[in-house]
């Protein structure tokens, strides 16, 4: 089975809010000096889902693909180190456009170019844009089924079986392959590659394609790019009106809090 995993390189989402900066003129996040870009954690879990199918005895070939410039090779190398077999870098479209149509159009074309993908996995959303659009878009463009928010992914006899997270439990969904599945954090932790695997991955080749190579219709591509514009990117201002309740003992603090909440009609 050939599994394509769509990954995105993003600023580390774990950095403290206090260190997060935006250039409002450029409408861009200011990179933190010395902080490396990382694979979006949901995408890491999508790759983990693919690798677990292999762990369970299935013969799988895993291709990681991403959009971006030369710098995005790092995220592919990380995928190879985790256990992917092949990597594809697609140049010529910014993954940061915030426009899921552009990204989905290019990825769908790349999947067609790969030709024999049975299962396409992606994170439920990129942890920068937090949109969660591309997986569904790729499926719609390829005309294949999609299951979102997977907490487990199994495949057998040409059918993928997914536990899909909903508000108060999960649905079990079966879909014929080929299909797209987006993976949620409920899947659990992604494996961390060893130093040896990282070294070995650094020597593995990365296939480079451009949007032009993929035969994406230029007029369609231009139309996609006009579907939305980013008007503003900013850090929301905190209200900052917290009343700290002190007290000699926890009991005194608690009693004082209850009293203040009653006075303010919060309780």
């Amino acid at each position: 089975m050939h599994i394509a995993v769509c990954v995105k390189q993003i600023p580390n989402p774990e950095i403290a809010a206090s260190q997060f900066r935006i250039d409002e003129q450029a409408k861009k996040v200011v990179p933190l000096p010395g902080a490396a870009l990382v694979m979006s954690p949901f995408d890491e879990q999508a790759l983990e889902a693919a690798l677990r199918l292999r762990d369970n005895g299935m013969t799988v070939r895993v291709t990681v693909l991403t959009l971006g410039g030369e710098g995005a090779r790092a995220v592919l190398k990380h995928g190879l180190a985790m256990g992917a077999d092949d990597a594809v870098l697609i140049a010529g479209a910014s993954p940061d456009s915030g426009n899921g149509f552009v990204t989905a159009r290019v990825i769908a074309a790349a999947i067609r170019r790969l030709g024999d993908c049975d299962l396409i996995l992606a994170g439920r959303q990129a942890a920068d844009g937090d949109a969660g659009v591309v997986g569904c878009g790729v499926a719609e463009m390829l005309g294949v089924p999609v299951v979102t928010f997977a907490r487990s992914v199994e495949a057998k006899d040409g059918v993928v079986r997914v536990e899909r997270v909903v508000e108060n439990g999960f649905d079990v969904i079966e879909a014929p392959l080929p299909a797209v599945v987006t993976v949620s954090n409920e899947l659990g932790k992604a494996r961390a590659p060893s130093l040896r695997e990282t070294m070995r991955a650094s020597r593995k080749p990365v296939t480079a394609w451009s949007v032009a190579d993929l035969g994406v219709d230029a007029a369609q591509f231009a139309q996609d790019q006009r579907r939305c514009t980013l008007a503003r990117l900013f850090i929301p201002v905190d209200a900052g009106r917290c009343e700290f309740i002190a007290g000699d003992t926890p009991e005194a603090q608690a009693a004082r809090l209850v009293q203040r909440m009653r006075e303010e009609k919060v309780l």
Partner: protein
Amino acid sequence: MSALRVMAVVATRGGLPTAAGAELLGLARRLCAPGGGEVSALALGTGAGEKLIARGADRVLCAADGALADYESERWTTLAERAAKHVRPRVILLSHDSCGADLAPRLAFRLDGMVATGCVAVTLDGDSVTVERPCYGGNAQEVVVLCALPAVVTVRHGCADAFIADDARHGEVTALESAVPDARARVVERRRESGAGVSLEDARVVVAGGRGLNGAEGFEALRDLARQMGGAVGASRVPCDLGWCPHSMQIGLTGKTVTPELYVAVGISGAGHHLAGCGGAKNIVAINTDAGAPIFKHARFGLVGDYRALVPALARAVAAMKAAGAA
């Protein structure tokens, strides 16, 4: 500029729109208010037509087939596409939940429009639609102009006021042809947690724990406090990912969005992705050992100290208050 039409995909329960569904109708009405416009409601698996008209719809498209009551991606997408081609709306509103976040992108691609998910504000500007939404895990907020139409938008719970129900309102209820081809992706089982106690989404009080609880045992104290306050217990993402509590308790950007009157955040630092799920709470009380934790910037009241002493003390203080009130 063509006549304004807004379509809302409204979830119903017991023949009435859910709180989130009613908010969508309220938002749709408000979008139409300045220059006039028509609000259509799409209601699948229900015959709640008149009730939706009272709550703001001018036109209701119903597919009363009970088999559609629970969300199924392919059938709902096909029917929503059918409804949208009938109504030809400029804006399609959905709730940002596991249904809307799945349906909205699919619909946008089918209709060759544009999509924005998890929005906190929607406004109209000429022919284009402007949305505001948190991104970068809630650390940032963006304003995006959607130029391709229809603009398919999922809206976070608690970001709009419901329309005050008015039974005198008139409207038209249309049955939507509900036959669809067999779905390729089929739901073979629906597992739900037994809803003991108050559900998080409906709770007036939510007591939530984070990384600072340092283990599953910490949630016991939170449950006691929630019981005293008649509330529900939730969590930030870390305790769920670490297995201290089930993921169904997760509140945040990728979990549930709650809008209680009172939100008690215990051992939660207040990362943006968590605040995206609880920022709509009317009042936040934060309990944390770190006085510099970002959660205090969003809190009305703050207690700095060890939750292991403070939470039980608070439960006792609330119990004492109730006893005094009853006496």
